[in-house]
């Protein structure tokens, strides 16, 4: 187990180094921007888990991300503190995913339908929350605010509702959350549960004939993925300071899929890296008006589906693997098995 997790831990240590060095060398504006990117990276990680390892084609991972953000914001406003709000955000989102997943997996809906259903749920959230402008739509003390969204209260220290964190400190929390989630997912895919999920991804019928209840395993990994997406959502609304229905729109749903495709299905660090790369690419594109963001992302998606279907990280690993094998006189390592199975 430890040997398989070695790459994961190496990346985690690099992440910790980055966490402590970045605020010393970067400006506050960059740090606040980075917090948003980190939150999105957690979202990418959750989809990398359920799609890359669970084989569940979820087009609506942003629904859980946005739901987590909304639950956090509304309950933090009502409770006057963030500790329980964070826990509630994760729990309610996971419960919602479990209920939705029950209908999907126990109905044995095929993967293509699953993508469309989850996307539809996301779009319905989008159109519903957009309509909630007006004083009659409120939960406790929190107005839903329709198109304009709700401003999110900042995180405070656990059970200390008077000490709020500054943006720079929120960066530490977000980075720590990303690293913890990454190590957790890296561990999860190497447990027995994770390996069964991978085997279901490879061949559902065979896994079922071996006696595994594939519906339950899929539901499990789907629910865990939704919980992680909710953590990303909590960090996101803290980084931005506001949550609007726009998180649920088609563009963001597509973006999540693109991160995982570009980074590579079956890896964890690939989608995280792709998130940061595309986040800065789209920010840079936002500064000019010649090329539209939608246009660029559409082209990227089509090119990757047609030409680089495995994504960047596995392609690079394969390339290096092929080079290493060609070198004569070198003893091949005895590690066997599919490279994409271990965490990277």
């Amino acid at each position, binding site marked *: 187990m430890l040997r398989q997790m070695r790459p994961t831990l190496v990346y985690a240590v690099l992440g910790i180094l980055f966490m402590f060095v970045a605020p010393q060398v970067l400006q506050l504006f960059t740090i606040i921007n980075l917090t948003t990117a980190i939150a999105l990276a957690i979202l990418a990680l959750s989809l990398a888990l359920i799609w890359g390892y669970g084989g569940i*084609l979820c087009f609506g991972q942003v629904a859980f991300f946005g739901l987590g953000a909304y639950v956090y914001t509304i309950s933090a406003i009502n409770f006057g503190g963030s500790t329980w709000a964070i826990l509630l955000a994760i729990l309610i989102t996971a419960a919602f995913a479990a209920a*939705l997943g*029950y*209908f*999907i997996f*126990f*109905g*044995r*809906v*095929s*993967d*293509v*339908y699953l*993508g*469309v*259903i989850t*996307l*539809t*749920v996301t*779009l*319905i959230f*989008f*159109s*519903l929350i957009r*309509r909630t402008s007006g004083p009659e739509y409120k939960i406790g003390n929190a107005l839903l605010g329709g198109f304009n969204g709700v401003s999110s209260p900042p995180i405070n220290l656990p059970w200390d509702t008077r000490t709020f964190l500054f943006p720079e400190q929120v960066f530490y929390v977000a980075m720590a959350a990303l690293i913890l989630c990454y190590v957790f997912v890296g561990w999860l895919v190497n447990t027995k549960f994770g390996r069964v999920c991978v085997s279901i991804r490879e061949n559902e019928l065979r896994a079922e004939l071996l006696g595994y209840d594939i519906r339950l395993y899929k539901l499990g990994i789907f629910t865990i993925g939704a919980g992680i997406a909710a953590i990303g959502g909590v960090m996101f609304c803290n980084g931005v300071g506001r949550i609007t229905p726009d998180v649920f*729109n*088609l*563009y963001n749903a*597509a973006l999540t*899929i693109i991160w995982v*495709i570009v980074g590579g299905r079956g890896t964890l660090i690939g989608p995280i890296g792709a998130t940061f790369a595309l986040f800065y690419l789209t920010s840079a594109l936002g500064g000019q008006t010649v*090329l*539209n*963001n*939608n*246009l*660029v*992302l*559409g*082209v*990227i*998606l*089509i090119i990757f*589906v*047609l030409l680089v*279907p495995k994504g960047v990280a596995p392609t690079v690993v394969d390339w290096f693997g092929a080079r290493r094998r060609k070198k004569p006189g070198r003893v091949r390592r005895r590690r066997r098995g599919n490279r994409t199975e271990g965490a990277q």
Partner: protein
Amino acid sequence: MDLVVAVLFQLTYVIANLALISLGLAIIFGMMRVINLAHGEFLMLGGYTVVVATNLGVNIWVSMLILAPLVVGIIGVIVERVLIRWLYGRMVDTLLATWGLSLLLVGIVTSIFGASTATTVSPPLGAVRIGDYSASGYELFLIVITAILLFAVWLTLRFTKLGLLARGTMQNAEMASSLGVSTSRIYMITFGLGAAVSGLAGGLLAPMTGVLPTIGATYIAKAFITVISGGAAILAGTTAGSVLLGGINGIFSFIAGSTFGEIALLLAAIVLLRLMPRGITGRFFRKSL
């Protein structure tokens, strides 16, 4: 009595609207097992065709009923030749590629026409009176034209040579091709026709909704739910799905407002899929078109 008629009219309109926006998607899905995520953008392109053509002085009926399906149909054929045909049999990749196409089309239209509403056209028909109530004449026109469209698709599938070849290809593509049918051409024509029907629907709806580059997103959720709940049979599926979901949506909208109507529609669809994972026509009316 007048109230009942008015409510029934509204209900029929909701159902017809659902059938209209789903039919193009259902044709492509039923024939080719391709879920076209760019469906909403085909509707959007139909809308833009009508707005641009009308502003250039073309008669609105000509631009809605002839130009919109023609332009979007041609775009559909190009898309099939360039993108879709490399991906037959790989459903997930087709989904992703058509999603990329959807973003690309939104991007292109935004670059050309800008992100805000282009000049709109107004519905060309006035109000119709039902006793004490008045209803939109254009909505009545849409109901009639949806019925005609469904009937035309049925006639094409049932009685023309093209329909026969298409149904044969749908049932068993290998057998059809060994009997000398060019399945690749059938797929191209089917995709083009599906796109043309979407374009027609988008063009017809443009006077009601206006046009925006991102307007496709408001249609596709409903269209997908209808087609998936309906199942693979094109006409029976679309009709059954629209009647059931449109009926539920209409009734709940009437009782509790349109927000609850949409929630009820979604919940009904999810419960329906738990009971019938292959859609309504996966269980009932299996032999139908």
